[in-house]
């Protein structure tokens, strides 16, 4: 019963709401079904299936709030769950940041669901894993991969008349291919709403080519280099930066978006004019949920336009207190790019480094958003428009703020982790030491 239709979900929600004795009550019903398969050393190591529906009740008495959840749906359990939320609410301290529940909302129509993905079977997963393994067996390479698909829905209803429902599907696949002597390694990763765009064999081929091509890596001196970051290399750094677009942290003086002397830097030009980042739940390539956890509508929102900070997200409480825009956190982000392919970008590079993936990224200084981490699974030296040879991995210490001021070129965006990210050519990217890791 994991995936309920809108009518089925709202029938349950209406019934549960009728049990409420609280001043305000909001019910959220979520369901997930799907599975995964994991391989290593060209064999299946583990696989599993998920199938769960969960109901959450939030009850409020005045400024006191309590939440309870259950995953069984007989009347007695549902009633008990409502009672439990009410008991927890009565015992809770009053929240100084209380905001009344939202009333009816208008949501944009976002199609984040593909029947093809919802129909994935264990056989399909085994076939895709098998295709990836066979390719590596034939080439005498060793692969480790992970395929995970989920079909989910979220439905909400509250005592103020809010109603929401949406379904979503996702398939994510990543594969690391290594040479038998463990001296070469390559990687490919992608995620999809619709499985018909996915081909494990093709992605494994990309990783295999990188693995074979990274044999015989030479060490070059750490320092500042022009880099071409593939989307898998930059998505986490950009995601971390977007996470810092929180108005409250900025206003409180503990964010890179805080202004000296107080306030925030909305309206300031902080990046190269080619940088435009927005979110859009209706985007055809990266559709996401049209509403946030608290029921606020997600609409197309521009965070950075031509290098200027345009918006920050905020809790409802902080938006009201500070008078800032009431914008919920997005479901993903879209960074605009150009039309160049990765090959075009390499061709136009005199001297630089192609980075497949960055790994173990950790914050070093929240003030400057300085992060450290390492290159991994395919790092290549570019000279006169061509990949010259593989190089040993580097540790970097760099801030996405600095990166986005040092742009040389942006390529065609690709989907990763529910966001759209272009390959980026960046000058003066800081590598601080060499690593022997392959």
């Amino acid at each position, binding site marked *: 019963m994991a995936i309920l239709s809108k009518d089925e979900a709202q029938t349950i929600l209406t019934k549960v709401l009728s049990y409420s004795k609280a001043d305000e009550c909001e019910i959220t019903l979520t369901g997930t079904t799907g599975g995964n398969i994991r391989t290593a050393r060209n064999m299946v190591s583990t696989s599993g299936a998920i199938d769960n529906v969960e109901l*959450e009740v939030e009850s409020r008495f005045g400024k006191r709030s309590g939440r309870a959840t259950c995953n069984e749906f007989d009347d007695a359990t549902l009633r008990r769950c409502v009672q439990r939320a009410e008991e927890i609410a009565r015992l809770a301290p009053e929240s100084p940041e209380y905001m009344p529940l939202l009333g009816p909302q208008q949501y944009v129509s976002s199609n984040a669901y593909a029947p093809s993905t919802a129909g994935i079977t264990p056989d399909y997963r085994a076939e895709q894993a098998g295709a990836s393994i066979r390719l590596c067996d034939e080439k005498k390479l060793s692969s480790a991969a992970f395929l995970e698909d989920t079909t989910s829905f979220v439905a909400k209803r509250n005592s103020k008349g809010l109603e929401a429902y949406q379904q979503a599907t996702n398939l994510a696949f990543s594969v690391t291919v290594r040479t038998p002597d463990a001296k070469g390694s390559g990687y490919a990763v992608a995620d999809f709403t619709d499985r018909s765009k996915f081909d494990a064999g093709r992605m494994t081929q990309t990783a295999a080519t990188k693995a074979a091509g990274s044999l015989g890596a030479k060490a070059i001196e750490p320092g500042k280099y022009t880099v071409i970051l593939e989307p898998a290399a930059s998505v986490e750094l950009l995601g971390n930066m977007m996470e810092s677009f929180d108005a409250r942290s900025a206003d409180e003086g503990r964010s890179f978006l805080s202004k*000296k002397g107080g306030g925030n830097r909305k309206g300031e030009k902080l990046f190269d004019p080619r940088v435009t980042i927005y979110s859009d739940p209706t985007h055809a390539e990266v559709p996401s949920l049209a509403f946030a956890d608290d029921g606020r509508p997600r609409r197309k929102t521009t965070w950075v336009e031509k290098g200027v900070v345009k918006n920050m997200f905020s809790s409802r409480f902080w938006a009201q207190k500070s008078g800032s825009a009431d914008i919920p956190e997005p479901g993903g982000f879209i960074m605009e790019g150009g039309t160049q392919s990765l090959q075009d970008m390499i061709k136009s590079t005199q001297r630089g480094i192609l980075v497949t993936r960055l790994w173990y990224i950790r914050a*070093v200084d929240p003030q400057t958003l300085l992060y450290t981490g390492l290159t991994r699974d395919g790092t290549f030296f570019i000279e006169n428009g061509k990949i010259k040879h593989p190089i040993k991995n580097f540790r970097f210490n760099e801030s996405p703020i600095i990166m986005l001021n040092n742009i040389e070129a942006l390529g065609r965006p690709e989907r990763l982790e529910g966001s759209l990210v272009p390959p980026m050519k960046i000058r003066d990217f800081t590598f601080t030491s060499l690593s022997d890791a392959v």
Partner: protein
Amino acid sequence: MKRRNFVGLTGLATGALFLPNFPGFGGNLVDPARLLEPVMDATVNKRLADAALNAAKSAGASYADVRIGRYLNQSIFTREKQVQNIASGESYGAGVRVLANGTWGFAATNSVTEAGLAKAAQLAVQIAKANAKVQKDPVKLAPQKGYGEVSWKTPIQQNAFEVPIAQKVDLLLAANAKALENGANFVNSRLFQINEQKYFASTDGSYIDQDVHRIWPTFGVTAIDRASGKFRTREALSAPMGLGYEYLMPKAADKIAGPAGTGLIGYKNSYDILEDAALAARQAKEKLTAKSVTPGKYDLVLDPNHLGLTIHESIGHATELDRVLGYEANYAGTSFATLDWKAKKQPYGSKMVNVVADKVQPGSLGAVGYDDEGVKTKRWDIIKDGMLVDYQKTRDQAAIVGQQESDGCSYAQSWQDVQFQRMANVSLLPGKQKMSVDDMIKNVDKGIYIAGRGSFSIDQQRYNFQFGGTTFHAIEKGKITGMIEDVAYQANTQEFWNSCAAICDESDYRLFGSFFDGKGQPSQVSAVSHGSSTTRFNGVNVINTARKVG
């Protein structure tokens, strides 16, 4: 929940993209009183477990185990003078793992009835048989005797779930008040508590009932200089522990004075959150004006509350056999410490480096009586006199390295996740000669004393790392001369451990650890401790992490 979200909850890393409003950390949200209700009954569990094991055997399994688990957790989040969230979670269900046609299969269910478990067992066998078609080498399990009906419980003095929430909230708010009184602009404090009630049974004839407790109080204090726009944070110097609420009842005997001139205090088996919050606020303010480090080579003196994570990353993960063999290649990575590397007999560290793995140390996060595949836990050597002597293994790995027994390293984060090899406690043994931290520092000419958790990053084969901390004090000519900032050290694992020059004695030994250590796909968390005494490393490369932006 994915590790990213777990880590985000702790405020220690920035991995959580658009974290939703403070969820609990798994399971159904329940009334806190529910966490004290007995649900697990060994007699009933044995009957249920037998139903699963019999169904698995009838379906063709050559081996089966079942874990019936009730996983309880509670988290409390506060900031300044207010409570942000209190969540109590309960998750109850069972996972069945089988070997059929030489291949693993796993299925889980929240229908904890004889029929529900039998169905899960049959599904697990069906999955194993399907996967066997692409299996090349059949799984070989190390022999394991059945223990019959046995039980184990974390030796706690006070169950944290029995302490009224109001009392726990009051303590966190009192810590916040101490920080604010001492000049903090912001303070976030958090208390995480876990109780795993788990019943394991296998076709080897074990029926194991366990009750495992863990606790982690922590906070972050922020000081801001509005005029310059600068802000600095000082994290708590608590440790996540395998203890009950007694950890939050400070005892003088558990306090160890830090180096003269730092004001720091080391905490053993109890933690004084009020004292640490007050000091944290003063230090956060001091950090705003502390001198920026001059990059170069320094002798590092590392407090156990910092060194624990260095051990975790550079020895703990590097000696996990699944990583060594390539099972984690697509995610966490592999290891430089391969079987070939070990055979070459190169020194992992200097002769004074002795590292043990263990699953039995009282107070530690990893301590259990039996692991999640029914192996009695033990302590064993990993590095002896600087040389790598062994790895961390599960039952299906022992044969691969020609050994006869598992080390008891199997763990699953809940009943619905399959168990796999997870890190034991991995600890550096104290120095044999009497030495206090002040004795150690008086011999350091140019050094840095580092305490607390900071940024930890290491490559996928555990060679190159860069670690930060929460407090940094300059050491000049044998004396602490004040706080410094913008410090991170970069090193290679072998060079670093071979530069180990002195280790304080047992009186300085303390546990530190990781409450939410992530590994696997889908990612699972586990909790693990690392013990050490303050340790000196010579000539380590220190970089300055300050940058200028916009």
